[in-house]
Structure formats: structure tokens, C-alpha cells
């Protein structure tokens, strides 16, 4: 976002505290809601600390490597990296540059380093609740998910969805499709076709974890009068009447809080964000449901049951299986 970036450097130039932060993304930010939130997070951190920030967008492993190197060379106070792609890279750089503070969002290095702080999410908790909504709303008793790829990380968006639905309606059937193909993160046409194969079999609630392909999933669901669930931010406005709810992942909070604690001297720790910490949530469980354009706003009864489940998870009474932990 060239235009937006110019503003950033303008505010950056006026920043006075001398604190500087660099965000490196694994992919182009574009309309990737998850990365957009991370950008929001680093901007507000810069504002809070009256400092400057830069965003380096990567597109592949080679550019990730070069961007991290460039960030390290510039020696900002904190380098924030979003995505599990960076685990190996950060481990390598942290060892070489013990004076540099790193913050990884959504992943962590296998070894712990004094200068690497991590923030991870328990998306599966939120997805589980969305699954419960789906189980309660499904007429056909079939709920499905469309994931980008068959990886443990993406399985977090499908397996708990099925588990949540089965929790509230034991006989629910569940199935998952993967977009795949030559550009799995961008191929909305394939995502749409994958959703269609589920819809054709009578699945009427679809969890959409297809990155840019989500719009394809929504289009497919809308055409068949079925329902879909978004991720990361409120996607209901993309397809009002079709998107039931969203699994919100507050990357911005993780970035802000992470920077805060690194500057406060707490480093080398891993913070996990789930329902309890407010890092994961559903649009339906937040304020402003009624103006969210989400379908769930019309199903207060469902929300009541889901709130009960959430409380059980928060209290630790109910434990959601994490597919990525195996």
C-alpha cells in the first residue's frame, strides 16, 4: 500500500522518542485481514511510544530472508515478525544478534532465546465456538470447512469447527476441503469450487479459512442460500446475510502488548492468547453485534448457548483439542 506507507513515514519522521519498530510480514499485506491487523498494531504502538515504524512486506522465502536481514541491519528497538514462516530465521538472527529484540506473532522458535518474545494464539477455541453456532444453526446436520492447505495450522480452522458442532448436535456430519492448486492463498475461483462441492452435498454451514479465497467461499454460500463463517476480522460486510460470525484474532493487540512488554524489559517469554486473554473471540461475543451485519445478531438464543460454552473454556472446565499440537 504505497499511498498508506507515505503517511507512515510522515508520522514516522515526526516521531520524537527515538523508539523504532519494524514489522516484517511473510506475504503482501493487501487485503489479508490478519496482516492488516498486525500493521494496525505496530502503528498504534508507534503512536503510543511516540516512535517510528516501518513495514517490510515479503512475498516468498527469499524476500522474507532479505527483509529480515534488512531489518536487522537497521537495528530498530523491536523487530516484529508475523507468521510461523519466521521461526527458523529468527532463531538464526537472534543468535547472531543478541542485542536485537525480536517479537514473533503466531509462532515461536523451538529453542528459547533471551531476545525473542513470542505471542501465539489458540484459534481453535474460537473456531470451536463458531462450530457450536454452526451445529445449532444447521438444518441439514452437515457442517464443513474450506482451508487453504492441508497443514496443521489450517486444520485448527476445521477440526475444532467439527468438534464444536458435534458438541451441541452429536449427529452432525463434518467434512473439510483444501483449496490447493498453483496459488492456494489467492485462488478464489478454486476456493469457490471447493465450497460448492460441500454445498452440493447439502452442507449448509461453511467455515471459511481460505485466505483471499474466503470471498469465493462466501459467494458460493450466498448463491446456495447457505451460511459461512469468516476469520480474523469481521467479514460479515462482505456478504451480509450469509456470514454468520467470525473467529476474531486480535493480532493488533498481540503486537501492541508484545512491544509494550519488550520495552518494559520482559523478554524471552511466550504469551498465549485465547478466549480468556481476549486475543481470540467471535464477533457475536463482542460489543456492537447488532451493527455488525452478521447473521448471528438475529440468533440471540444461539449466542446465549455459545456464551455458556465460552465461559466453560475460559474457566478451563472444557478443553478444546489443538490439531497443531499433535
Amino acid at each position, binding site marked *: *500500500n*504505497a*499511498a*498508506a506507507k507515505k503517511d507512515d513515514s510522515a508520522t514516522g519522521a515526526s516521531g520524537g522518542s527515538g523508539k523504532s519498530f519494524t514489522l516484517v510480514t511473510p*506475504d*503482501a*499485506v*493487501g*487485503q*489479508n485481514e490478519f496482516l492488516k491487523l498486525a500493521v494496525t498494531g505496530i502503528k498504534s504502538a508507534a503512536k503510543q511510544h511516540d516512535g517510528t515504524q516501518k513495514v517490510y*512486506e515479503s512475498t516468498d522465502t527469499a524476500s522474507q530472508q532479505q527483509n529480515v536481514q534488512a531489518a536487522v541491519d537497521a537495528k530498530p528497538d523491536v523487530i516484529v515478525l508475523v507468521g510461523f514462516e519466521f521461526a527458523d530465521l529468527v532463531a538464526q538472527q537472534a543468535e547472531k544478534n543478541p542485542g536485537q529484540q525480536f517479537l514473533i506473532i503466531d509462532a515461536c522458535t523451538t529453542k528459547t532465546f533471551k531476545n525473542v518474545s513470542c505471542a501465539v494464539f489458540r484459534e481453535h477455541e474460537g473456531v470451536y465456538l463458531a462450530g457450536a453456532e454452526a451445529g445449532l444453526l444447521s438444518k441439514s446436520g452437515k457442517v464443513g470447512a474450506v482451508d487453504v*492447505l*492441508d497443514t496443521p495450522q489450517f486444520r485448527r480452522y476445521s477440526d475444532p469447527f467439527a468438534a464444536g458442532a458435534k458438541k451441541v448436535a452429536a449427529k452432525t456430519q463434518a*467434512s473439510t*476441503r*483444501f483449496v*490447493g*492448486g*498453483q*496459488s492456494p492463498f*489467492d*485462488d*478464489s*475461483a*478454486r476456493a*469457490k*469450487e*471447493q465450497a*460448492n*462441492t*460441500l454445498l*452440493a*452435498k447439502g452442507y449448509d454451514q461453511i467455515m471459511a479459512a481460505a485466505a*483471499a479465497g474466503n*470471498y*469465493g467461499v462466501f*459467494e458460493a454460500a450466498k*448463491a446456495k442460500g447457505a451460511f459461512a463463517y469468516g476469520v480474523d476480522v469481521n467479514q460479515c*460486510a*462482505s*456478504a*451480509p446475510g450469509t456470514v454468520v460470525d467470525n473467529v476474531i484474532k486480535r493480532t493488533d493487540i498481540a503486537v501492541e502488548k508484545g512491544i509494550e512488554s519488550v520495552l518494559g524489559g520482559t523478554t524471552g517469554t511466550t504469551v498465549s492468547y485465547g478466549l480468556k486473554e481476549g486475543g481470540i473471540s467471535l464477533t457475536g461475543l463482542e460489543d456492537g453485534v447488532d451493527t455488525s451485519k452478521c447473521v448471528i445478531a438475529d440468533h440471540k438464543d444461539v449466542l446465549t448457548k455459545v456464551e455458556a460454552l465460552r465461559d466453560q473454556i475460559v474457566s478451563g472446565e472444557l478443553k478444546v483439542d489443538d490439531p497443531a499440537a499433535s
Partner: protein
Amino acid sequence: MFLDSDLLMSALRALTPILLAALGGALCERAGVFNIGLEGMMLMGCFTSVATSWFTGSPWLGVLAAALAAAAYSLILAVGAVTLRGDAVVLGIAMNLLAVGLTSFLLRTVFGVQGTFDDPSLAGLPLIGGFTPLAYLSWAAVAVAALLLSRHVWGLRLRGVGEAPDAAATLGVSPAKYQYGAILLSGVLCGLAGAQLALGNVTLFTENMTAGRGWIAVVAVMLGRAAPLGVLLAALLFGLAEAAGFRLQGLGLPQQATDAAPYVVTLGALFLTTARRRRRPRTTGAVQ
């Protein structure tokens, strides 16, 4: 039976952009121009259709603009290969690269976003009986192209130009003119293919969203021996393989296997057809 008709629907949707582009490729092939720039022309169509539809609010203007823009883009091949006698293959590869760079660059400078441009208020093509009007157009185009090539004066001359340009020239038929015509038409068809992909199959633009479909179209031209009906069958084969692949995923096959399926099926079909063809040599057709 519901499942089967749905498989066919899914295959037909998947094949529409490929079919349109491949028809363009077939026309070029018949005119003696090897066009592997289909992917790039299609991508230009994708971007232009989305940009135009967004700024004018009319998907139809988007379709029109896509056809024009891709046709204009195809002039690179026409001028480079026909007028300047450059190598069509190198030009095609360069056009594919240029289109990726250019559309991504424009995406950032025009829309200020990177990766994907999507907006609920972006107007897509309407569906009639589950298909966009462009899908119906693509089927009609097969029939028209078949008739054109086999029976029409223009088609006869085009085939002559493709086979023996100097012979056509001695009869007062300018090979360059017909080749320009075929290339520009392939541009229009690829533009439509792009519009179908970006405003029909989905309603958004993503960098490199053609994702190899133009290459599949090139293969379809070969497989279908540059005949419209053959191209249709080849595209259908590919569409069915892809749609069936989606279904097989439902049966628990790993995603990687279903990803590879269409290519393996296409390769197999190529083996069979070329093996048969080799027994009876032909003077025309994409495959020697």
C-alpha cells in the same frame, strides 16, 4: 444423479475461462502463430475487467474493457512476431511475465492495495441458469469458430495462411493481415476469459489470479489439434479432471494428489492422441 449434474456444472464453470483462451490460441495456431502468451493476456483481462467494473459500476463495461485491453496487449505479439519477425515463444513468455508485473504494479498504484482487491460493491456478472452470459458465449464461440474455420471464407484463408503463407501471399491474401486478425481475436477471447474469471467465477482481482490457466489453454490447443471442437473436448477433460479432483478430496485423497490429477490426466490424453496421430501423419496441428 444430482451429484453427477453438479460435477458437470462444476467442470463447466472451471473450463469456461480455459475454453475462451484456448479458442483464441487455436485461431493463432491455425494462422501459423504459436501463442503462449494466453496467460498474460488473460491476466490483463482480469485486471481491466475488475478495474472498469469498479469505477463504472457496470460489469458489462468491465467485460468490454477487458476484451479491448487484452486485444491491445496482444499487439505486442502481433507487432513483435508478425511485423518484426521476433520469436513468438520468447515474446509469449515475456508477455506472461510482463502481465504479472504490470497488473501487480497497477493494483498498487490504482487501488493502493497489494495481493487482492475485493469489495462487496464490486459488480460481478449475473448468473443465468447457474452460468454467466460469458459461459454461454463461450459455447456459442466454439460453434462459431468451428463454422468460421471450416466453412467461412475468412476461415479458409486463415488456414491457408497458417499452412503456406507465401502461397497465400501470391494469391493476394496478406498473411500478416490474417495473423494480426487471429492474434487480436485471441486477445479479445483472452480478455473475455479474464473477465469471466474475475467477474464470473469470482468477483475480485488477485495478483497472478490466472494461476496457470493460460498454460492449460495452450495445452488444450495442442490436445484439441487447434480445432474448436477438439479444444472444447480438451478443456472439458481438464475441467472434469479438476472437478472430480475436488470430489476425490471428499473421499479422503490427499490434496496433493487431487492437485496433480488434471495434469496427469492431460498428459495421458496427450500420449493417447499423439500416439494415434503418429500413425497417420497430418500436415497441420500443433503437435508435430
